[in-house]
């Protein structure tokens, strides 16, 4: 070790010793665990909300596509109503599927986290 490294080493050893002795008592590990579980749940709920919001855009997509690809000569209220019903039904089913699947996978059990 070079003299400058040794010198800094000695100085910081003294500083580290005094700093570590002044360190506060850590809060309970259980509290950290609870906060982590809550944080995990918050993140999960944010992701779920984003996914549901994306799925809810499906009706607009179906309506636009359906109207754009309609057979020539078709117009009037009936096709729009059919398309709208189809779109809403798709969105409803998709939302239910997403929410159900995410709820099933989203359980967090940090107490059994790998050692």
């Amino acid at each position, binding site marked *: 070790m070079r003299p*400058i*490294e040794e*010198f*800094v*080493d000695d*100085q*910081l*050893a*003294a*500083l*580290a*010793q*005094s*700093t*570590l002795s*002044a*360190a*506060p008592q*850590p*809060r*309970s*590990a*259980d509290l*950290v*665990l609870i*906060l*982590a579980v809550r*944080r*995990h749940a918050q*993140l999960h709920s944010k992701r779920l909300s984003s996914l549901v919001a994306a799925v809810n855009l499906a009706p607009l997509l179906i309506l636009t596509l359906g109207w754009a690809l309609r057979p020539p000569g078709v117009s009037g209220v009936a096709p729009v109503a059919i398309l709208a019903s189809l779109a809403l039904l798709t969105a409803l089913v998709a939302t239910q599927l997403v929410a159900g699947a995410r709820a099933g996978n989203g359980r967090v059990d*940090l*107490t059994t*986290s*790998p*050692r």
Partner: protein
Amino acid sequence: MSENPDFEEFYLQMHPRVWAFLFRSTDDPAVAEELAQEAFVRLLASRGVALPWDERRAYVFRIAVNLIRAAARRRAREGATPLDDMPELAALQPADPIARRASVVFNGLGERERELLWLAHVEKWTHSEIAAALGLASGSVRVLLHRARRRFLERFEKEKKNETD
């Protein structure tokens, strides 16, 4: 007793070290305590908790470094708290004169220099470990550490001169 004894052991052993690193980087005991807790919460909520001990230690310090950066940005936005408003800081000044002088010199360094010196000389990390924690190229740690040591020495000499004057 926690239901995760491995985490509890890690937490109890590493918390003072993480706090000391954060305190020496931020110079604010309350912020250091808040950030230390946040670092362990983030560790637990991430895959880092499953890593082997040494890697987990590096991981939690990496989180701490990111938290320091975020706190510095927040402080810059909101305006720093004057030191007079932090009476607890005075209580944390080292009683040992060598440590007190080292504290003054160390606090006069830049944030990056303090982090480099602390990880190299207190935590005894290798250059590649420091590079990973601070997001630096492995080759530049050597140069930056050398500069930080020189700056520490310069400031030390200056401080010593000021004390004798």
